[in-house]
Structures are given as C-alpha cells and as structure tokens.
C-alpha cells in the first residue's frame, strides 16, 4: 500500500484528498429535487427616458413560492418586435459596455449559453454567461464552478480573461448591472437599493461578505429604440443535464410615450456631520421616484450605495442622516422616476411576495404553468448624473 504523503502539514486543510481508493462501492446519496415548475416569471417592458432620448426598459421578477430567486443559473432571451441594431463590439476594458454581440441584426436580446469553465463562448450574445433572470432584474449572478466560487454574488466585481494573443475578453466575468449600448452622459450603470430608506432601513444585512453592497432595483434598460408590440422573455437552462423546463413571459408595449424628464437634484451637505439633503422636483406622472447616490472616495473607489425614495410629486427635500457619508467623499447622484411600484418589489426579508406588481396598470400577471402574461408597462425616466461633495 502506498504510504500517505505529508505534503505540508500546515496546509492540511488546503490539500484535501478525496475519500477512498480501496474498491469500496458507493451509491449516490438520495436527492430531492425541488418542483421548479412552481416558480413564476414576470416580465414588463416600457420606455426609458434618458434626457429626451427614448430607450427600451425591461423589468423582470423570477421567484420561487418563497419569494427567493427561482434559479441560480439560467439563460434569458427576449424576443423583440423589431431588429436589434446595436453594434456588435466587444468592450475594451473591465466592466465596460457590452454591445449586442451576435444579437445584432436579429429580433433578440439574448444571453450567452454557458460553456465549460474557461472556455470562451463561440457565440457571445448581449447577456454574457454570467447574467440571468433573478428575483428582481437581470443580474450578473449566474452560479459558476470555477473551483473557487460556486455562486457569483450579486453584484460582485470580476476581472477579465486574457486571450493567448494578449487581448482581453469578457468570456467569464461578472458585471455590474449594465445598460447595453453606449449612452452619452450616462455612465453609471448600477443602481442598487441601499440604506437609508424604508425598504432596507439603516443597514444592509450582515452577509459576511464584502461583495454584497445593495439590493437589485429590478430594471435593465437597453440602448435601443423600442417599438410597440409583443415582447417575450424566455428563461431556460440549455445544456443542463437535469431539465427544469423553460419559462416564458409575454407582455406588450402599447405606448411609446415617455415619462417626463427628471431634473437633476441639488444638494446641501451638513459637512463634517456626514449628512445631507437633496432638493428634487418630481414631475407629475411619476408615481415613484428614487435618488440613487453612490459614495465615492477621493480616489474614485465606490464605498457604498444609498437610496432615498419618495412617492410625492413636485418640489421636495429628501434627507439622509448624519454619519451616512464620510466627509470629503464624493456623491454621484441620479434621480430616477417610475410609473410603477419599483421599490416595493425589491426583494427584502426572508419571504418577499412571489409575484409583486411591476407595471403601471396595477394588475397582476396571469400565470398558466410556466408561462405568464403581463399587462401594463414599466416606464422610467433618468436625470443626468450629478456629483457632489460631502
């Protein structure tokens, strides 16, 4: 018999030998498989007003009966009633914009089918392999087996892969929530629901991980000009050895009218106290507005994400308490208006609702098996980003 090698005693936990090489037979332990068919997929589209330019907005919820994300890995695909004209260009820097990939010229906004670890997909689409439909929104959180991380944690930051020729490619990385396509003047692509607000209170959950910085806000706009018609979201797991079926959700974009433009907020800081207040004007027609502001260090590093929410229209002041922002840090701010209860659908607590209303008609989606039909639409309007100093 081979002697047991002592590799390095100090690394006993690092080099874990697998069990048994002695001809002992074994059987796979019994498993229970969850009835994934009980999950519900909701999909809404609408207009996204970027300072006068109309783009396509999408909102999705995909939840189990307990309100948690239905699948930790899936590949979404949106059938659109027009031709996707986004340029097929690969980004040239980490976390920068991805264009439509091979969706260009098709009527799809689709996801890249997962390949084996380390293998660059031969068919990159608008969504990379990391993006799937989760509890609220398209998130770059598809689980992966890299050997070191079994679940990409939203919204984790990832690196890039260098090809043999030295070029970089996003074949296997995690992204901040993107807006697909370049939109001049709108550089922030990640909007996370953070403290302090009525949704998440004064602190984020203690996760034990530094990578969870905020809850998803649920919407993903695309830098393409929408047309009226039917939009169908299909979510599945191609190549999975255990079929879970395909989920679909159909919705219609009936109105191309945009929400009013959102003026950029103004800001008054309390200085060293670390508090401040924003003065905003919410136009009529906006049922809900949220100030998304990021704390940035002087070097440009992102410290935290915060959100202030209002349901009132007109001029108003929204305040965050003392001690929220480190004096001297910058605050990058965007005011976003919604015509649907966007913040109420943020999945917080252990049992959020499985199918919250995410449209402006106030009506729930109807479900039939793994399909759904959703009425109304979900429109947003974004102010230009403004940066202040605490």
């Amino acid at each position, binding site marked *: 018999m081979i002697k047991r090698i002592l590799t390095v005693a*100090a690394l006993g936990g690092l080099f874990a030998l697998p*069990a048994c090489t002695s001809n*002992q037979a074994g059987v796979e332990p019994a498993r*229970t498989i969850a009835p994934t068919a009980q999950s519900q997929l909701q999909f809404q589209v609408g207009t996204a007003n970027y300072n006068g330019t109309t783009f396509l907005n999408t909102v999705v919820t995909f939840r189990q009966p307990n309100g948690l994300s239905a699948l930790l890995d899936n590949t979404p695909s949106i059938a659109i009633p027009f031709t996707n004209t986004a340029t097929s260009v690969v980004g040239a820097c980490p976390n920068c914009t991805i264009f439509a990939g091979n969706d260009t010229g098709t009527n799809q906004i689709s996801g890249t089918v997962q390949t084996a*670890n380390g293998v660059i997909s031969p068919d990159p689409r608008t969504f990379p392999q990391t993006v799937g439909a989760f509890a609220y929104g398209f998130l770059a959180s598809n689980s992966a087996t890299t050997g070191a991380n079994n*679940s990409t944690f939203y919204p984790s930051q990832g*690196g890039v892969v260098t090809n043999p020729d030295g070029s970089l490619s996003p074949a296997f990385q995690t992204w901040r929530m993107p807006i697909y396509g370049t939109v001049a003047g709108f550089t922030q692509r990640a909007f996370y629901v953070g403290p302090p607000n009525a949704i998440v209170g004064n602190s984020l959950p203690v996760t034990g991980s530094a990578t*969870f910085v905020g809850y998803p806000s649920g919407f993903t706009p695309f830098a393409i000009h929408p047309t009226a018609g039917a939009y169908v979201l299909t979510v599945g797991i191609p190549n999975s050895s255990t079929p879970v079926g395909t989920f679909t959700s159909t919705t219609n974009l009936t109105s191309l009218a945009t929400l009013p433009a959102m003026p950029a907020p103004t800001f008054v800081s309390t200085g060293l106290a670390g508090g401040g207040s924003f003065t905003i004007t919410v136009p009529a027609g906006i049922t809900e507005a949220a100030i998304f502001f990021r704390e940035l260090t002087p070097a440009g590093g992102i410290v935290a994400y915060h959100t202030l929410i209002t349901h009132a229209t007109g001029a108003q002041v929204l305040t965050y308490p003392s001690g929220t922002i480190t004096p001297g840090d910058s605050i990058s701010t965007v005011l976003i208006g919604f015509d649907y209860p966007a913040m109420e659908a943020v999945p917080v607590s252990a049992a959020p609702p499985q199918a919250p209303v995410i449209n402006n008609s106030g009506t729930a989606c109807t479900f039939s098996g793994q399909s759904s039909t959703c009425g109304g639409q979900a429109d947003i309007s974004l102010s230009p980003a403004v940066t202040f100093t605490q």
Partner: protein
Amino acid sequence: MLHRIAHALKRSRRGIIGMALAIAFTASLAAPVLADTTTGNISGTVTAAGQPVPNVNVVAVAPSGRYTATTDSKGFYGIVGVVPDTYNISFSKTGFADSSINGVTVSATITMTVNQALNPRLTTIGSTTSRSSGVSAFQPQQPEDTYSVNANQIQTILGKSHAVSETSLIISLPGATLDSSGYPVLRGGRENDEGFQFEGIDYTDAFTHQFVNSLALNGVANFQLSPGAGDASVGNVGTGQINANVKRGTRPAFGSFEGDMRTPEFDHDFSGEYGWATPNGALSSYSSLQAENSAFTCGRGRTDCNLIGAQIFNNSQVGRDFIENAVYKFGRDKNQSLQLFWQNQNFEFYENAQFANPNSLLYRTSMPDYIGYTRTQLGLPASFVRAVLPLQYGQTTLTDLIRRPAASVTQPNDTLKLQYSNSLNQSTFMTMKFYKVNSTAVFDEPYAGQSCQGVLSGANCDFFTPQGGQRTGIAADFTKQLGTKHLLGFGAKYEFVHPIDGFQSASLGMIAATFNGPTDLFDFFPGQYLPTFLGLPAGVGVRVPDYNQAPVADRHDAGFYISDQFQATDKLKINVGLRLDRSSFSNYPGLRDGAFNDPNGYSSAFYLPISTGLYTSGPLIGTPNPALDVYNPDTRQSNSTLQPRFGMAYQFNPKNSITFSYGRSVELPPIADVDFRIPRAQYAGFAGIPASQADCGPTADRTCRNYADQIYWDNANIIGGVPINPTKVSTFNNYDASLQHDFGNGLSAKVTPFYRRGYDVVALFSSPLFVGGVQQFDTNGNPLTGPSQTSNLGTSYTTGVEFYMTKTAAYGLSGSFSLTYLNEFSNVIPLSGNEDFFPSIPLVSLAQGNLYRVGFVSPFNGVLAVQYKWRNGIRINPIIGFNVGYPIGTGLLTPYAFGGKNFNLPSTNVTNISGSTSATQYVDPANPGTIFAPNIAATRGTAEKNSPGGVLSAPRVNIANLDFEYTKPGSRNTFGLLMSNVFNQVYSQPSFNGRYQPVATGVSGPKSGTQSGNAFFPQLGYTNYAGFRNNNLPYLLTPSGAPTEYRFYYQLSL
C-alpha cells in the same frame, strides 16, 4: 487448576489395548507480558491424583526449537523465551506413564498454560492428540485485548498463502477498520496513531510514524493485533499495536514456491520461502522472497481512463521483498542464540502505466496555470508572469514540455536486527538487540494537467519529496519467573530517530509570494522592486524561488518498563505494569545562528519566543525589543507521563471467562508535527537586498532584516508554519472488558466493549494574527490567521464494541468472524483535509469547544473469512467484508468568526469554513439575508445533519473474494484460483463534488464537472468529466476500483 476432558483415543502401533485416560489438559493463553515480542512462554503444573509431582521432565519440541524443564516441588514448571511454533510437550518420570500433548501453539508475547495429570505406568498406553489449526478467540486468562492469528488463519483470511495484503489482514480482526482513505486504523485512531512492530522492531518511519513495510506481508509466522494500550512493554502507540514475527528455519526443512498471474490486468507474481536447520538445530535459516509486477487498468471495461483525466489510474506497481532470518544457537543446551534478521524491500507505485510510450508522458509544469491565475486576478500581461515563475528541473524556458519519469512513489525499506538471547535457566530469559530501520519513501509528483485535475487534485501536483528516515536502536528485556505466581519483566530501549523530509515545490513558492505575506509578487516583476534594485534590463524579472522544507531535528527516544504477571489463583490472573517514555531533540550548534536577537542571522527559526519585550522609551517605543525576548528552554524535549497498565482475567468455568484492562498510553509527537523548518540557504542570493516589507517573524511584527529574511518568513508563515513547535505527547486512557465463551468443537467467541479517551492530542491550527501586539481582523471583523502551529488541543472520546468468533479445525469448516462498532467524537471537523492523518482544527471551532463524530471511519464493520477443507484436497475459501457506510455531508452548521466573535452559523456558500466549493446550501444572490439567518434559495438536495459527516453513505460489501484450491493428498502441488471483487463493485466511496453548479434544489447546471482549462496549453488543460463521472451530481462516484479479478496460482511445497 483447570481441567478439560479430552475424549479422543488412538490406538498405538503396537496394538496395545487402549485405555481411556482422563487427560488433564489445559491450553490457555495468558496475558502478553513478555517484553521481547518475538517469543512466548510455556508454564504449567504437573499432578498425579490431584497432588503435585516434582522432578518431572518436561520437553517441548518443535521444528524451530527444543526446550526442557523440570517441575519443582510444587509440580510447577516454566519455560520462557520460546520461539513461536506448534510444539509437542512430553512429560516423563519414572513410575509414571509417559504422556505428551501435541499441537500446542505458542504465539509471541503469549504464555501458554499447559497442565498435565500423570498416571501410574501401565502396560497400555494411550495418547491424546490434539491439533490446533489456529489461535482461538477464547483466551480465558489473557487480560489485555489481543487477537492472534497463525499462518493457517492468515491463509483463510486472505484466501491463500503467500498473500501480501497486511491491510486486509488487519481489518479482518476486531478493533481494526478501514478508514475512508483506505488505510487500516485501530479503534478509530488516525493512520499514524497505531504502532507497527516486526520482529520486535518499531516498524514506523522516523518522520510521520507511518508503517515502513508498505503493509506487505512476507514470511509471517504469527500476527497479533492489540487494540488499546497493551501491556507495559508496548510504548509510543496511541490506539494499539500490530505485531508480526517471521518464520524460522526448521528441521526437517520446509519451503514453498508460488507463481501467480492475475487477469484482466497485467500481473505476475513470484514468491518463495525456504527454511532449514542443521541436524543439531544449532543453525537455522529462513529466507523468503516476494516479487510482483503489475499494471492496473481502471474501473470497468468501458471506462475511458484518459477521459476522466486520470492517468493515475493506469498505474503500475513493482515490488520486491526479501527476508532473511538466521539463528545460531550455542552454549549449554543451546540456551543462547544469535539472530540476524534482514529485510530488504522496495515497492514502487507508478501513477502512469510503466510500460506506456514515454513520448506520451509529457509533463508540463504547473506554472502556466499561474499565468492564467495572475492574468485573471491581477490583470497582468503574460510576459510579466513568465519572467518570474520558477522553472522546473529540466526546463530552460517556462513553456518547455519536460519528460520526466512517471509520477511515482518509491517505498524502500532496509532493516537489520542483531539479537542475542540467553535462557539463563528455565525461569530466566533475556534478550538484547540492536537494529536499524532505514526507510524513506520518495514521492515524485511532476505536474501533469490530467492527473492534477483528476481525483487526486491538489495534493498530487508539482512536488518532489523524500519522507521517512532511520531508526537506530538498542533494547534489552529481562523475564524472570518467580515461584509459581509471579512472572516479572523489565526492559529498556533507546532509539536514535533521524527524519528525512526534503519537500520541494515550485507551485508552493508561487503561492507564498501571491498570498498576503511579507513578500509581494509584484516585487519580482520586470521594472519593479527587485529588478530595479539589481539593475536588470527592462523586461527582465527575478524568478520566485521554490518552496523547500527540510526538517532536521533528530530525536532521542527512550523507554523503560516493569511488569508483573501474577497468578493469584488458578482462575484469576492479574497483570500490572508501569512504563515511562521519553524523547528529546538534538541541539545542533549550527542552527543557533539566526536566533532572534542575532544580527547576523536571518530570524528566529529555531526558537519560538514565548514573550516579546517591547521598547519602553525612545523612537522605538512600543516595538519589539529582541534583546528582551525569552525563549522556551524546553522546546526540544517531550517528557512523558508515567503509564500504568493493569489487566485481570478471571475464568469462572472451563468455558467462560471475563477480563478487564486499563492502560494509559502516550504517543510521542511525530517529528513531522514538531519541525517545519525551511532551509535558509536557498534564499542566500537575496541576503544583500534590502527588505521591502516590515512584517517578519512568526508574529509578522518584526522588521525584516533583508530580502532573504522577508522571503523566508513569507514561506514559513504562509505554508510551513511556525518552524519549531514545542509539542507534548498525546495521552490516551484505554479501558476494555471482555466476555469469552468456548462453545466446544473449536468454536469460540469473545465480545469486548471498550472506551478510549484521548487528550493533548496533537493537531494543527492557524493561530490568530497579531501585529505589534494587536490582533488583526478583516473588514468583516473576522480574525486574520497567522502561521500554522502544532498544538495539543486535540481531544477524542471513543466507545465501541469488538466481537470475534473463531472456528478452528484442520478439516471441515474453519474461519473467523469479526465485527467492530465505533462511536468516536473529536474536535477535528469531520471530512476536513487530513482529518485522519495530520489534522487541522480551525481556531473558531476550537474556541467554541465543538465536538463532532469523526468522519473517516464507518461506525460498523465486519469481516467473515471461512474455509471448508475436504480431506480429498479441495479447499473453498470465501471472504466477505462489509460496512454500514462512511460519513458524508458538509453539515448544516459551520464554525464562523465574525466581528471578533465565534459562532456556529448556518453553512452556506458564504459562511462554509472550507469555502463555497464545499457548500450544500446557497443563498439568494439578490436577497442573501444575513449570515445568522440566510435566505437559502437552493440546496444540493441531499440529506444533511447539523454536523459535517452526519449522514452515512449507503452500506456496502467492500470485500467479496472467493478462493478455490486443490492439493492432491500426498502431493506437493497446489493449484488455485482466487477471485477478488466478485460483485465487480468498482465505484469509490461517494466524495463531495467540488465542481457542482447549483441551479435549484437538487438540480445542477451545465458547468458542473468541468475544470478550468488553461489558456497556455488549451489542448491539455480542459477536462470534462460530466459524461463519465456523473459530475452533475452532488457526490462523485469514480470508477477507480479494480474490477473482478482472477488470480491463478501454482504452489510447490518442499
């Protein structure tokens, strides 16, 4: 006086009218007291009409020896120092009929009590013959728990003679089980907790305390397993001892030769033995040779071993094992002897087919993986990384494909013993021996993309190391029979233990430079600190040195014991003893350089300061002042505790006996647990370069003296651990009791409940990191860990029951049945790396006092080995082994530190102490909840309990062998067929799938089972196991076992 009526009657050749005689015959085995573990005792009382008979001539004769004694006034006789064999014992005295008892088997360390009742001389003579085909489970006067088997029984357990698997033999005896790695362990102890003795020599290696003989049997006459502490002569074992003795030459000579072939893989074996002695018995010699060449194929016939990435399964094995055991007897009645024992043995295990085309064995180094790693994680160009990665031996550039011998493990063993024995008189026996065990295994594991991504990933990549060493010792033992009631023994032993461990790995050098240590990998890159300091041209980097580890601490071991076996009454025997073991390390003057306060040295590699003084004033106020350091003066010593041993046996009737024993045993910490030093010489080239960091020393708070100091502590703190660890002995208290019953007709049984408590058990842990006296935490408030340290913080509690049944018979049905139940708790986390070898315990688990049921043993095991032997020469021998499954599962709770406090929290991909690849519960990335109340969106769907290893895998038959053999009566030829793994079970124990992609509860995704490829060698780097190993399942089933095999053999007996 114990009596058993024998009913056999045999007519003599002279046709004398037989007369039924009541033969008072007692064959019982008493406590293993004799210190020299190569010999046994015979003693008894001769009576007539119930009265003791003095001056009876007692002669014990066997092919290996002849011993005489005379009864004293009380009719008592005793013969000590008897070579194990089966004896005829005759009793004669004028006026009484001669009588004899045949087939008295004496085993090593056993005292046979043979009483005899004489009858007045008659004209008719009857004799009783009794033959023993094995050692019975019924040992009514044996206090300590011991299981002995002779060569016949070994044949039944292993299926045939000339079998080599010591592992199979060990686990067929109660108290011994197979751990989850396939190694035998005793009473749930770790692989290196048990003691191995061969011919009375400590047969464990000098570094790790593992076996040195590759667990291969050769020439074994008798074999003994003693779970627990054993008697006082047994030392430096934690959980029990395995003892074997070699055959001796006899007259008439004996011998046998065997040729084997096995199918369906390549396997040719040859073995032969021959023992002879001169007519006067003065000189005897026994020689034995085992030779084996084999090349395995993996799994079932349709398994593509290359596709499962495991060229390791196309492994081959070459073994040669030679034994010589020569004895020269001289002196009055040949009462003295000189023995020369020599074993010259080598087993080579190749992890690729030895006979494959060598051009196909191209090994690339692990370095290209690091290119991918650094690109991904650091965003660095490949050229930077190429400039700093270490080259492997034989490479001139980083991308050279080097041809090296197949990954292999070579395990040589050369052992020599010289022993002098003297039976000073019939009641006094002494031995003195000198021995040297030289055994250093060499593990040569070049990195091969396939094998490193195979089953044995991580541990078997990119290193080369010899491990083992030499034991050189002298020992003396003295045994004295005092009167009829006391058998005294005392002895002493000294061993010089020289370890060898030269661990070398380029990959680990990179790990040390990449982790958060004093050295920054960036320092090596072109244009960065080192090249700039050295004035190197642009684009030229400095290569990171390999990691090397070479402990050098020699150890001096000494053991002393005294014991008394007291025959209180004819039914009650008591054994008491006391033992002391002591060890100390050598103090090499040359290693004193580099003391903490030596400005000419690198650092305090040899001494671990137990307190560090600080400057109290001046510009350095509050920083360490090396002049005030105090060192642990006892760093190099491991004092033992006194070890009492007690045993008693009470035979309350001829067929029933109860025993009880208690023993405290200590196990000296293996040198591998004490000395983790890294040679400083390899960093000499960096000594003239100023340090770029200021966190050197085991507490990372000392200014680095130069760059060599910096690299040294980087390697030590990240990988090696604290260089020298003052470690105490591990102590075990062992209790057991047995109830034994003789059913008659050779059938007997014994049941033995036991309890063992282990404390101060050696285990590693990662110490909390202090810098400048301040404990360090990460951004989540979790304590950062410092270098690994050896501690005595391990603990264990083991309860269990052993059951043993034997049927001894020359013909017909015979065999053994053993069962072992184990219930063991330890503070080592189950299924953690090296749980059963050199375990580590996370500090957070230690702080909470967590106890777990161990994960490396099946709680219930059994082996049934029987044979049916007909007088027409046919023998059938089935062997069945089974267990109720092994612990699996990572548990629902995990120890976790947060905010400076320790908790047992839900185990998820966020909190699992082994990382996300070991998780079975996954939080919702969009709504994770808290670490105290996580929102679990999916699980693997398998059953879990709170503790890791809380669920058992399925019960299984792990041994299913069948032997058919035929020897025509009177013929010297034997033909046989041994079928192994009759049910063709080739799948391994389920192992946790670390490449599992969770999708939903019980559902895995398309990335499951895939291993990251390598951009540098894409044709080698990518392996997809999904199709062959069911890698989409939570647990892996690897077809790594041999299929049903057929071994054809022929034996020629001389």
